[in-house]
């Protein structure tokens, strides 16, 4: 959407398969995210949500259309668009939690004392103030995700990209982290692109939910504003209505995927 802070405009993307026909993941994707907005991307598997995030992160390049942030095209990864990955395999096992959080600052050449102070601040913020000396292998899944969040926050990046960060966690931890994330985002006013499979999670977190079509060559199907006041609770009737609505749209796409698979047999 032209004019938005984050602007996907007719974005095409495919994977190079070498021999054989091209494998279009995204075709004509139009997506706009406003500054300070919490945008959740929802969709069936293989619909290209992770690809959209990777494009915004700068890990891949668009084949068609344009992708810009604040008017400037995205060309490479940068500290202004920090990623929080799914799972824990992006943390560095040979560094303590504190050193992991400091990593971005160390790369930027921030002096050690400042680094330590800022990292400790963020660790306190995410509730790991006393665990800074521990190694990732000594910490639980939820704590490891918090380290990632702290690592991203300490860089004070305006945009946070989160690829199903809570998928590998148990339900209780997920609920706690969802609340924490909402608090953090309200406080820092950062722009967030959050990917998930979980409709409930989407409604709890998002200002706006974008539902993608099934692949290949997918784009946005529909967007839904979530105007509920925060904090949001699942028991709320408004929550239930939204859930059903999104569920209906989503299952259309899921059925379409299955129908296509069965047809090609």
């Amino acid at each position, binding site marked *: 959407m032209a004019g938005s802070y984050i602007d996907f405009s007719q974005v095409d993307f495919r994977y190079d398969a070498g021999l054989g026909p091209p494998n279009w993941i995204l075709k004509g994707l139009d997506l706009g995210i406003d500054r300070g907005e919490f945008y959740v991307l929802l969709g*069936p*598997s293989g619909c290209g949500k992770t690809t959209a995030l990777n494009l915004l992160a700068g890990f891949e390049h668009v084949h068609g259309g344009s992708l810009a942030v604040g008017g400037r095209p995205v060309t490479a990864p940068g500290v202004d668009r920090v990623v929080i990955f799914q799972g824990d395999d992006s943390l560095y096992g040979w560094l303590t939690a504190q050193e992991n959080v400091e990593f971005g600052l160390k790369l930027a050449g921030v002096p050690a004392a400042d680094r330590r102070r800022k990292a400790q601040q963020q660790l306190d913020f995410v509730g790991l103030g006393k665990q800074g000396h521990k190694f990732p292998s000594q910490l639980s899944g939820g704590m490891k995700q918090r380290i990632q969040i702290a690592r991203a926050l300490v860089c004070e990046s305006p945009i946070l990209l989160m690829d199903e960060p809570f998928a590998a966690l148990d339900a209780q931890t997920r609920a706690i982290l969802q609340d924490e994330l909402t608090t953090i985002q309200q406080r820092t006013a950062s722009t967030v692109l959050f990917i998930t499979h979980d409709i409930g999670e989407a409604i709890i977190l998002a200002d706006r939910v974008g539902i993608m079509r099934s692949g290949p060559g997918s784009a946005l199907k529909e967007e839904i504003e979530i105007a509920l006041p925060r904090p949001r609770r*699942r028991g709320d009737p408004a929550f239930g209505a939204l859930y059903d609505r999104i569920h209906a749209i989503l*299952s259309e*796409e899921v059925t379409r*995927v299955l129908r296509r698979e069965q047809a090609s*047999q």
Partner: protein
Amino acid sequence: MTSSSDAMAATARAAGSGGPARTRAAVLKRVRGTASLVLRYAVAAAAIGLAWELFSVRFDSPVLFPGPAKTAARAVELIEEGRLQADILVSLRRIVIGFAVGSLVGALAGLAMGSSRLIADLFRPLVNFFRFIAPTAWIATAMVWFGLGEASKISLIIYATVFVVLLSSMIGVGAVAPNKIRAARCLGATDRQIFFLVTLPGALTYVLTGMRMALMNAFMTVVAAEMIAAEAGLGFLIYNSRQWMETDSIFVGMLALGIVGLMADRLFVLVSRTLLRRFSFH
């Protein structure tokens, strides 16, 4: 209320089936994969061949450093004389026999040591000492005990194989998920049944990995043994050619070793994969 689009798809998909579309795509992927592999090997071989040729031309001493052409010619000669095949077969025979016996003994011993605390405790110090002695160090002993014939070389290969397979098998027993054994106990299995029906198949991957490593060891040992004390075999071909300054024969021998070794390894991987598919549940 935490349904996911994935769960929806999965349950619906369970009603459907795979179908020929999936296999067609899989076959295409396989073909593409093998084509890419063949291309890489071809490019690598061409690049090395070129570098070799350039190097030998710069070195300019066909005796000290023959180029690929001269080596190929020599290979043809040796094949026509029947010498190359004979040497390959001699070495292979020693390896196969030694490897088979060593693997069997090593696997059984390793499984036993892995399953029984008593046996492990008893033999661990001895195993941990003897496994560090290079097999070839025993060549003199082997020749005194077994004479100058095949037995001495094969005994060394057995030695080389046993310890590697033993260690791997021992670890394999430990790697069998305890719940599998517990489940068997709940169902009333005796110790013997547990060993043969749960531990053995479970540890199989590790045994096979150990055997694969031991195969390389066996090659190393047979070459060394043949260099020191044999009148035939690839190691003999390589070392003996030094006397006549036939460096091209040396290169032929080394290349033959590489090819035979690579093929043996690939064959082993193929066999173990088919075996695992029958027994594996992962």
